[in-house]
């Protein structure tokens, strides 16, 4: 789930992503020893899913004896930081730790598929820190035992500055494995030049007036969530029966020709080019598109509900430089650093005090910068109000792999038409 105007992720992967090397491919296709008989090879997993919470001594066991190495490699989504990486420069200046920053994550599913074989084999994936979204693959990472349990005694800034609400996240209670990078909302975006009435509710995505001009997300969780919300079902507590109802509702939208296509990151581009007039959207994207292209797109959280998600820092259990990674995680919870990041990416900031900092920055700035910083500090997309939160729903947290698969099997055929 990235949120920056990008072409179709399948393309971007082809362009930017390191091609899977042969070793990866062999492992993915079953860790086959050469010439192994058919039955001799299986895809290695954990054997049995791990409990969601780490054992009491897991933190001590993992961190004891680990020391900093003065370097780390950080895997993040594209355009999720100022390209000049000012925060990382400050980090290196303050700690001496060198950071290699790579924008290699385009989608959660493929990212998990890419690193799973190495992690299952207990090998280093080449990254000490990564940003993963809550959702299906998040659970797979946790259940497979792929994430290092966090030593909170080494996260003083987090303890001091993070919004306490994050400790209660259903997908990672008590932040056992992750702390947030940023959060965002899924709502509706539209082009007011084409849509001549204000959009307020989910039903607008099913309005025949926009026939062939409606976009939805191809991510099955995002898609399913809106199907459910449109029927008044809370995704977080939904059941398989609800999923089927939502699937029927979504099929209706497709069969009546109201839907134009299911999009990944490319929806922003499609919206800008008039391909869709109204679409499911991620909050920060629209803000950034308006700033960068001078577009005048609108983003709304529907009255009847939108969703909120969190992208999270996580350390792969096989990381070579976990201590340095943890240090960087904590660094992003310094108020000034959190503010600096939010000023650029315009997603929900996990540090409430950053708001004051941004206001101070605005006071010190002038001209266009001043106006834009003031807008960020006031933006409900960066600092949502209690009212906004009341309309935002959480993702369904799948308890078992079987449940995930059942969910996928209901929604995936819709996307793959």
């Amino acid at each position: 789930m990235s949120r920056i105007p990008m072409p179709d992720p399948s393309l971007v992967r082809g362009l930017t992503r390191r091609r899977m090397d042969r070793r990866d491919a062999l492992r993915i296709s079953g860790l086959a020893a050469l010439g192994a008989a058919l039955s001799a090879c299986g895809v290695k997993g954990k054997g049995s899913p791990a409990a969601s919470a780490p054992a009491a001594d897991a933190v001590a066991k993992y961190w004891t004896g680990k020391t900093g190495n003065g370097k780390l490699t950080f895997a993040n989504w594209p355009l999720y930081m100022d390209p000049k990486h000012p925060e990382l420069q400050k980090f290196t200046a303050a700690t001496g730790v060198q950071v290699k920053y790579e924008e290699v994550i385009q989608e959660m599913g493929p990212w998990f598929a890419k690193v799973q074989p190495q992690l299952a084999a207990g090998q280093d994936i080449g990254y000490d820190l990564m940003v993963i979204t809550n959702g299906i693959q998040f659970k797979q990472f946790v259940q497979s035992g792929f994430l290092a349990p966090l030593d909170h005694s080494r996260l003083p800034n987090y303890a001091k500055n993070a919004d306490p609400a994050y400790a209660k996240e259903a997908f990672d209670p008590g932040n056992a494995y992750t702390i947030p990078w940023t959060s965002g909302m899924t709502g509706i975006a539209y082009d007011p030049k084409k849509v001549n009435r204000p959009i307020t509710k989910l039903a607008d995505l099913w309005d025949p007036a926009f026939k062939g001009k409606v976009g939805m997300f191809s991510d099955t969780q995002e898609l399913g969530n809106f199907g459910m919300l449109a029927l008044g079902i809370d995704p977080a507590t939904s059941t398989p029966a609800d999923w089927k109802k939502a699937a029927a509702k979504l099929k209706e939208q497709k069969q009546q020709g109201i839907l134009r296509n299911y999009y990944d990151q490319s929806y922003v581009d499609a919206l800008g080019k008039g391909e869709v007039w109204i679409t499911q959207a991620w909050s920060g994207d629209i803000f950034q598109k308006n700033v960068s292209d001078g577009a005048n797109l609108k983003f709304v959280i529907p009255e009847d509900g939108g969703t909120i998600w969190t992208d999270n820092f996580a350390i792969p259990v096989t990381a070579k430089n976990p201590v340095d990674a943890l240090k960087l995680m904590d660094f992003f919870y310094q108020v000034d650093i959190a503010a600096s990041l939010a000023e650029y990416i315009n997603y929900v900031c996990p540090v409430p005090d950053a708001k004051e900092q941004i206001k101070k920055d605005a006071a010190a700035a002038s001209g266009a910068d001043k106006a834009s910083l003031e807008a960020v500090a006031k933006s409900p997309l960066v600092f949502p109000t209690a009212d906004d939160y009341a309309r935002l729903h959480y993702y369904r947290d799948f308890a078992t792999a079987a449940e995930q698969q059942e969910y996928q099997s209901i929604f995936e055929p819709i996307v793959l038409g």
Partner: protein
Amino acid sequence: MLRRRLAPYLLVLPGGLWLLLFFVVPMVTMLSLSLQEGDVVTGYVFTGHWQTYADAIVNYRTQLVRSLAYGAVTTLILIVLAFPVAYWIAFYAGRRKATYLFLLLLPFFVSFVLRTISWRQILTDDGMVLGPLKHLGLLSSSAHVLGTPAAVIGGLVYNFLPFMVLPIYVALERIDPRVVEAARDLYADPATAFRKVIFPLALPGVFAGVLMTFVPASSDYVNSAVLGSSSTTMIGQVIQSQYLTSSNYPTASALSFTLMAVLLIGVFAYARALGTEDVMKVAAR
């Protein structure tokens, strides 16, 4: 003596090993994977579960049939487009043959994916082609090309054109002009000479062209992903999604295997119908 008997085997060894390593091993692995059950967290275990094939084919028959249909239509259009081009270059381009072939290949120095994205820019709803037409009122404001089967097939045709032109060109280029002269001397009019002499001699080229375009066009997923919509999904997209989004390796492998089987059967049936005894021999030309 012994050395002479071993020589052919030694010669075939590097290629043979290559095939074993990068074709047979992945194939066996894929077959194995398609017969496993489990999930990505607990791991997949071989159970010989053939039902995966039945389920995959039933669930994704629409996309399978669509892919083959798009592949076939693309190939037919390619023959119609490529033959005249190849014919002209082979017989009328004179000294400039190499230049024209180079021009034909020139766009292909740019990445396949980039070129496909460019078509997206060109054909988009308010883009440089449709935008002005809509502005003039010649098209309704909701008219679009992207997302339709025509856009996907158009993209496939564009992307695979050289793979049809080149083999046909090679076949035509090899025709001895004296054979055509002989036909004319024997009172064949140009059309008859083409029908009875040139076209049959060019057939192996067409055959190779079909092999080189039908298979990749049917299994392509980039064109459909970029230019199509959820109603033009091809089987390659389904496989990609099963592998990378759902981590459902057995279904993805079963679909890959099915696609390959269907394509191989199709190719061999085509070879028989054409009366070619040895597919590889023709393909190798």
